C-alpha cells in the first residue's frame, strides 16, 4: 500500500517537475538559451492569472488566456530586446552573457512581483479543482493533481509534435545546428526564434498557474524548480523531449521513495552529485564529435566484448 501511495506521490511530484521542464526543454534544450529568468516567467503567469481572476473577477478560462498572452508578450520583448542581440557572440561569451543578463532579469522580476502583489504566499483557486478528489485502490488524488499529470503529458506530446513535425520546429533544429546554413536555406531565423521563445514562455506561464493552484503563489516559487529543470533537461539528453519527460518523472519518483529513508537535504545533494558525475563521465567517455553518452557507452562496451570474445 505504501508502495502504491509513494508511486502516486512520485508521479505527482514528477508531473510538477515535468510541467516546468517541458517549457524549459524548448528554450534551453532546443534553442540553447540557458534562461535563468524562466522561473520568473513561470511565477509571472501565475500572478497575471491571480490578478485577472481573483482581483479583477474574470472567469478562470479568460484568466488562463490573459496569462498566456501576457507572458508570451513578455517573452517576445525579452527575445527581441535582449537575447537577439547576443546570438552573434562566441560560444563562451554567449553563454556568459545570457546567464548574466537572465540572472539580472530574474532579480528584477522577482522584486517587481513582490512589490506589486506582496511577499505573502497566496491561495490561487482554479475552477474548484482543489476540492474534488478521486479514490481508487486506497489512494486519493485531487482532481487538480490529476489535471497536472494529464497536462504535463499533453505538454510533452504537444512539444514533440511542434519540434519534430512543424515548420517552426524543424527550422529551429536547423538553426541550432548551423545558423548560417539555415539562413542560406531560407529559414527565417529571427522569426523562428521569436515564435519558439514566445511558445516556451507561454507554456511556462500556464505551468505557473497550475503550480500556484497546487501549492501557493510566491515571487520565488519557481527558483527551486529551475535547478531541477536543468537536471531534468540535461540528464534527459539536451533537446530530447521524450528524454526530458522520462527524466522528470524519474526524478519525482526517486524523491518520493528516497524521502522514506533519507532527509531531504541528502536527497537534493545526491541529485546534484549525480549531475556533476554525469558531466565528468561525459567528459571522460565521449570523444570529439560525439554527443550521446548512452550510445557512446554502449559502443565502448560492445568494443570490450568484441575484444574479449
Amino acid at each position, binding site marked *: 500500500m505504501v508502495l502504491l501511495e509513494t508511486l502516486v506521490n512520485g508521479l505527482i511530484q514528477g508531473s510538477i517537475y515535468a510541467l516546468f521542464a517541458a517549457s524549459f526543454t524548448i528554450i534551453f534544450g532546443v534553442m540553447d538559451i540557458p534562461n535563468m529568468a524562466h522561473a520568473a516567467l513561470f511565477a509571472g503567469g501565475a500572478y497575471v492569472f491571480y490578478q485577472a481572476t481573483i482581483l479583477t473577477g474574470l472567469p478562470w478560462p479568460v484568466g488562463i488566456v490573459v496569462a498566456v498572452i501576457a507572458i508570451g508578450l513578455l517573452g517576445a520583448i525579452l527575445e527581441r530586446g535582449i537575447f537577439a*542581440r547576443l546570438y552573434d557572440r562566441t560560444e563562451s561569451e554567449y553563454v*556568459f552573457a545570457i546567464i548574466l*543578463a537572465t*540572472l*539580472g532579469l530574474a532579480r*528584477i522580476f522577482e*522584486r517587481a512581483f513582490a512589490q506589486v502583489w506582496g511577499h505573502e504566499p497566496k491561495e490561487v483557486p482554479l475552477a474548484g479543482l482543489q476540492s474534488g478528489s478521486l479514490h481508487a485502490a486506497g489512494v486519493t488524488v485531487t482532481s487538480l493533481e490529476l489535471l497536472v499529470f494529464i497536462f504535463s503529458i499533453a505538454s510533452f506530446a504537444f512539444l514533440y509534435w511542434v519540434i519534430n513535425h512543424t515548420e517552426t520546429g524543424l527550422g529551429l533544429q536547423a538553426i541550432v545546428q548551423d545558423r548560417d546554413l539555415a539562413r542560406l536555406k531560407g529559414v527565417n531565423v529571427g522569426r523562428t526564434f521569436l515564435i519558439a521563445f514566445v511558445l516556451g514562455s507561454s507554456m511556462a506561464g500556464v505551468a505557473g498557474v497550475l503550480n500556484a493552484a497546487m501549492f501557493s503563489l510566491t515571487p520565488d516559487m519557481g527558483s527551486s524548480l529551475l535547478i531541477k529543470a536543468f537536471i531534468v533537461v540535461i540528464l534527459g539528453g539536451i533537446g530530447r523531449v521524450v528524454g526530458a519527460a522520462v527524466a522528470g518523472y524519474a526524478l519525482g519518483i526517486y524523491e518520493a521513495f528516497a524521502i522514506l529513508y533519507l532527509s531531504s537535504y541528502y536527497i537534493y545533494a545526491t541529485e546534484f552529485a549525480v549531475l556533476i558525475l554525469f558531466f565528468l563521465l561525459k567528459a571522460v567517455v565521449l570523444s570529439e564529435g560525439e554527443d550521446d553518452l548512452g550510445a557512446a557507452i554502449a559502443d565502448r562496451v560492445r568494443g570490450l566484448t568484441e575484444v574479449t570474445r
Partner: protein
Amino acid sequence: MSADTESGFANRNLAVDMPGVEWRAVAKSVGITLLLGLLAAPLVAGSSYIGYVALTVVIFAVMASGYNLMLGWPNLLVFCPAALAIIGGVTSALLVNVFGVPYLVAMVSGGVVAAVIGGFIAFSAIAIGSSFEIIIATLAFEEIVYYVFTNWHAVGPTGISNVPAPTAGPLTFQTQLEQYLFLLVMLTISIGIVAVFDRSLTGTLTVATSENEDLLRSIGYNPKKYKFIAVVVGALLLGIGGSLYAHVNGLITPGGFTLDQTVFLLVIAVVGGIRTVHGPIVGAIVLVGLPEVVRMFGLSNMKPYIIGGMLVVVVLFFPRGILGGLYDAIDNRGDLSWQFWK
C-alpha cells in the same frame, strides 16, 4: 623529446617567470590601492555607518579579486565563488573558536583549504571543458556545499556565531578604524597577488588560454596548467575573503553564501571590469555603495533593481565593465587589459 616535451617546456617557463614580472607596474598597482585606501581612512573614522559600508566594500573587493582571477584571465566560468568563500570562512572560524588557533594562521588555513577544493574544481572544470556545463556543474557543487554545511552539526542553518575579531600577534582589531586598516592591508596584499599574476608570463599565458588553446599548445605550453593556477590562486583569495567576512562580521551562515552571493560577486567583477586588477574594487564600491546611497534617499529595497539592471546594461552595452571601458577610452589601441596602466 617526445612524451615529456610538453611538460619540460612548460616547467622551464614557469621557472623563468618570476624574474619576468614587471615589478614596477606591480608596485604602481599596489601603491595606488594603498594610497587611495589610506586617503579614505578619515571617512571611516568619522562615521560608524560609512565605516560599516567601507568594511563591507573592502571584504567584497578581496573576494571579487579572487573570483575575477578565475573568471577573467583563463575565462573559466566557475559559478561557485560563494561556496569557496564559505569554506574558507568556516575553516577559519572553527579553527579559532574550537581549537584556539591564532587568527592569521586560521585565515591562511582557510585560504589553503579553499585553494585545495578550488584545485578539485579546476581539475573537473578543465576536464568538462564546455563553458555551459562548467557553469551548471559548479552551481550544483555550490548547492551541495550549502546542504553539507546546513546539515553539519558544527555549522548548521544558523551558522557559526561569536566569531572573534581578527588579531595579529598582540594586536586585536576591534574598532572600525582598526579593522579597516587591517582589511586594507589584506586588500593590498590581494591586489599585489593579482597584479604579480597579471604582470608575469604566467598571467599572459593564462589570458592566451582563453584566446587560442590550440595555438598555445602548438608552441609548447600546457594550457591546462595555467587555467589550474588561476583557479587555485583565485580560490585562495576567496577563502581568505570568506575568513575576513566571518571574523569582521562575527558571524557566518550557509544561507548567506548561496547563489545570491555568487551573483553579487559576479556583478562586482563584471561591473568593475573583468580581467582588470582594480576592477573588483571599483565594482565593490559601486555595488555595495550604491544601494546604501539609494537607501539614504528613502528608496529602500531597490537593491535587486540596481543589481539586475546593471547586469543587463553591462552585458548589452559595456561587456568590459567600468574600468575596462575606461582603459579602452583612454588608450584606444585594442585590448590592453593585461597591460594595465602602462
